[in-house]
Each structure stands twice: as structure tokens, then as C-alpha cells.
């Protein structure tokens, strides 16, 4: 069998003396959508940041297309196509929409594909084209999330890691953003999706992992987890869950 696009093996990460990830392993197949769910503070963001090269793990491996990324810095990971949409969007508020998108295509390889990428972003998010000269800080919440995803698309990603895309969005906008994520995936980008909105995330993913206090405690297909009594208990608020 071919290597998965991304493989995390026995990853351990700490902030100073405080351990945040314990022997975390997961696989993301090329072309799939994989969801990563779990309560606040479970370590989801920490895992994404480690994959992006923003945090140095204590131990374990992160392989991309079978190659150990080791201590490669974020710049080189982005150049390989590993791109993150950070939690809270983290747009450059005083820069225009277009300037934000341009920064997404900063590296030479991405810059070479700038025109195509921009077309792609504006096709996915026509709203951004209308507002291309507005300051990012003036966009609505939904538009800001589109811009955050669009900025990642500008890098020409192989793997897009999206951290809490639905945070602060209305149910309708959340649904819309999820549709766009599915469309993005349909265009060939592999997606690793961190979500609080478990139900929708499990519906669109082919595989999901559940995290709790720094451990992966459960994994399976989206349907399996949707049917899983414990998952439902944990997130519908019933008692006695093992999460």
C-alpha cells in the first residue's frame, strides 16, 4: 500500500514542563478529509502546530509522503504543501484582502502559480473578489473565515489543516464553510479538519480521530463515530462518557 500523505508516529509535545501530547499517532490519506475532534484543551491545536513546524516535539515522527520532516522549519513545510489555517483566523487586519492573499503565496513556487491560485480562490469565494481592496479587519466573520482559507489555498497546498473553521460563525455560515471545504477537497486538496462542531465534521470526513487530554482515544470512519454511543454521550452531554 502507498504511504499516506501524512503520518504522525508516537508524537510527544510539551510546553516547557507541561506535557500536551502523549504518543499521538494518526494517518491522513491523500485526497481525504480527516477530522480531529475533542474538547477544549485536548491538544488539537498543539498537534496541528507541531505538524506545521511551529513547535518542536520531544519525540516521535511526522512523515509527509513517507519522508520524516525532522526539524524542518515552517517555511520549508509550507513549500512542501503543508499549510495551516490557524485557530481564530489570524488575518492581517490592517492589510487588504488582496494583500493577505498575496502573503499566502509568498514562497517562489507559490508565487509562480499566483494568478491561477487567485482565480481558484475567487471562484471558490466570489465574495472575496468583491471585497478584494477592503481591509481584512472590516470583513464579516464569514468573509474572514473565507479569507483565512483562501490565504491557505494561495500557497498551493497538498495538505490543508484547518483549525476550528466554524468558531464564532452562525449555523448557516458554518454549513456554507463546510460546503466550501468539501469543494476544496474535491479540487484535490487533502484536508485535516479540527472541529468543535462534531456532527458536521463527522459527516463530511472519511476518517476521524477523537482526542482527550493529549491522547488519541478513539478513531474510525465518520459514520462509525457518529453511531458510537460514547461519542454521542460525550457531545450530546449525557453522563458516563469515557471521553
Amino acid at each position: 500500500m502507498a504511504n499516506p500523505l501524512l503520518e504522525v508516529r508516537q508524537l510527544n509535545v510539551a510546553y516547557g514542563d507541561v506535557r500536551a501530547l502523549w504518543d499521538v499517532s494518526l494517518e491522513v490519506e491523500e485526497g481525504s478529509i480527516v477530522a480531529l475532534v475533542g474538547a477544549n484543551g485536548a491538544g488539537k491545536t498543539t498537534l496541528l502546530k507541531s505538524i506545521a513546524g511551529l513547535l518542536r516535539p520531544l519525540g516521535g515522527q511526522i512523515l509527509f509522503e513517507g519522508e520524516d520532516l525532522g526539524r524542518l522549519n515552517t517555511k520549508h513545510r509550507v513549500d512542501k504543501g503543508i499549510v495551516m489555517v490557524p485557530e481564530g483566523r489570524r488575518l492581517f487586519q490592517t492589510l487588504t484582502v488582496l494583500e493577505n492573499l498575496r502573503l499566502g503565496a509568498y514562497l517562489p513556487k507559490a508565487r509562480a502559480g499566483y494568478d491561477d491560485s487567485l482565480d481558484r480562490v475567487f471562484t471558490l469565494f466570489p465574495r472575496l473578489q468583491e471585497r478584494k481592496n477592503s481591509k481584512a479587519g472590516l470583513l464579516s466573520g464569514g468573509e474572514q473565515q473565507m479569507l483565512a482559507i483562501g490565504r491557505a489555498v494561495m500557497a498551493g497546498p497538498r495538505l490543508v489543516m484547518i483549525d476550528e473553521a466554524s468558531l464564532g460563525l452562525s449555523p448557516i455560515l458554518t454549513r456554507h464553510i463546510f460546503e466550501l471545504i468539501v469543494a476544496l477537497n474535491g479540487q484535490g486538496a487533502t484536508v485535516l479538519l479540527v472541529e468543535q462542531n462534531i456532527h458536521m465534521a463527522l459527516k463530511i470526513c472519511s476518517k476521524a480521530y477523537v482526542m482527550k487530554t493529549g491522547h488519541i482515544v478513539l478513531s474510525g470512519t465518520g459514520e462509525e463515530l457518529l453511531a458510537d454511543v460514547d461519542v454521542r454521550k460525550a457531545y450530546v452531554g449525557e453522563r458516563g462518557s469515557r471521553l
Partner: protein
Amino acid sequence: MSSLIQVVINGILLGSMYGIAAVGLSLIFGTMRIIFIAQGTMIVLFAYLVYWASIKAGVDPYLSLLWVVPFAFILGLGLFYVLFRKAAALEDRNVSLLLAVGLMYLIDNLILKLWSATPRGLDIPYSDAMIVVSGIRVSWLRLALLGLGLGSALVVYLFLKRTRVGTAVRAASEDMEATTIQGINSVWVCAISFAIGIAMAGVAGVGMATVYSFDYQFGFVFAIKALVALALGGIGNVFGALAGGLILGIIENLAAYYVGIEWIEVASYGIFMLVLIFLPQGLFGRRGLVKKV
């Protein structure tokens, strides 16, 4: 009336120097999040170099722009990588600030050792050249200061607005980690903006060599003036910083003319405090020295 105009014009011209220094401070503050207190000392250092080149080799101080600005830029890159690279990554900004204080005193004392405590100033053959318009006299040398200020502020503005690296500098001043996430080498971006800040000190050094008499202790005072100019103009706005300098120059000259020369410092620091109390964003700034929470 014409004497008032004369005083204001003199203020604008001398204030250009504060403005140039403040633009440099603003750039460095953007990415490093410190008031680079050694900025004035850097200016004095470059003024000495320009002075020296003029005395020893007869190089015209304005011609010195051609070598002192690139030299300052490269020195800035070197200083950043040797002194500030590690400290810039720390959450606690005090380490960077202390390094800047250390650098200031180190260079002050180096200057004292190299050039003694004697105040220096250049005798420039064309320093008496004036233009006179309806009774108002303006020396070309001082007018050139305004040209330096406007020119260098424009260059920095275009760099920030029109270039890829300049856009990255603006991004990094807003959110360093998000900049890194785009695959941008934010350490390099910080180094560039620091180096441009030091290059501005090079520009100001030329101005200082042509119109001031300076000694090794002049740097700190000048850094404080630049800080006042920055507070007046507001951070994050190149022309605001320049305008802050011009306004400070005007205030100082008005105070000297109407109240007495010994009141210059009282007036400028008094206004500094008033601005910080009532307009912490500065007169033109989008954000002040502190972000609103």
C-alpha cells in the same frame, strides 16, 4: 507676523531630523516591540563617521549619504543577528530593551574613546547660502534636512506599501506567528525592518553632521526627542512619525522664541506628557505606543 512664519519654518526644518529618527523608531518598534533607545546614539555615530570622512578625506557630507546609508543598513543586519535575534523571539520584551540600553552606552563610550568629549561640528562652505522670500530667510542646508526627511519617509512608505517584503514587514508587525505560518521567514523580515530603521539613523546622521554640534552624550537626548516625535505622530504611520517630528520642531522653536530658550525642553516634554495622557494614539496614528485592549 513674518517673524512667526520664520520661527515656524525653522522649527519645521530642524524638526525634520526628529522626524527621520522617529520613522526609524517606528519601523523597529513595529517588529521588535521595543523603543530602540540606542537610535539617537546610532545617529551620533553616523554623524561622527560623516564628520570624519569630511575632515580626513574631504568628502561632502551629502555625498556621504551614498556610503553611510548602505553601511548603516548592513550594520543594522549585523546588529540584529548578533544581538537581537534570540531576544526578539522571547515573549518578555525587557531583554531586547536592556540590550538596546547596553548598546547605547557601549557606543557612547566608544565614541568618547575614539573622538574624545569635544563637541564636533562641520564647517560647511555653503552653510551661509540662503534663499530669501519676502523677508523670510531659509538656509539651504536646513531646507535640505526637510528634503532628507520627506525623501526618506517616502522611500520607506513605498517600501512598506508596494513591495513584497514591505508587505511582510507590515504583516509581521501585526502578527508574527501568523506571518511564519504563511511560510515567511519572519526572523529575516524583522532583520530587514530593523536594518532599515538603522539606515534611517544613517540618513539622520548626515543631517546631524551638517547642522548640529554634537558630542558623545547627545545620542540619548536625541533618542528621547525622536520618541516624543513618535508619540505625537503615532506608531504605524510613516508620515505621521515624520509629521510628529516637524510638530516637535515647531513647538521647540516657538517656545524658544516667545518664552525663552531655556523653556525648550520644558515645552517639548510637557506636550509629550499631555499627548500621552489625552491622545495616546498620537495625532495621526492608528495605534499608539500601546495597543488598546
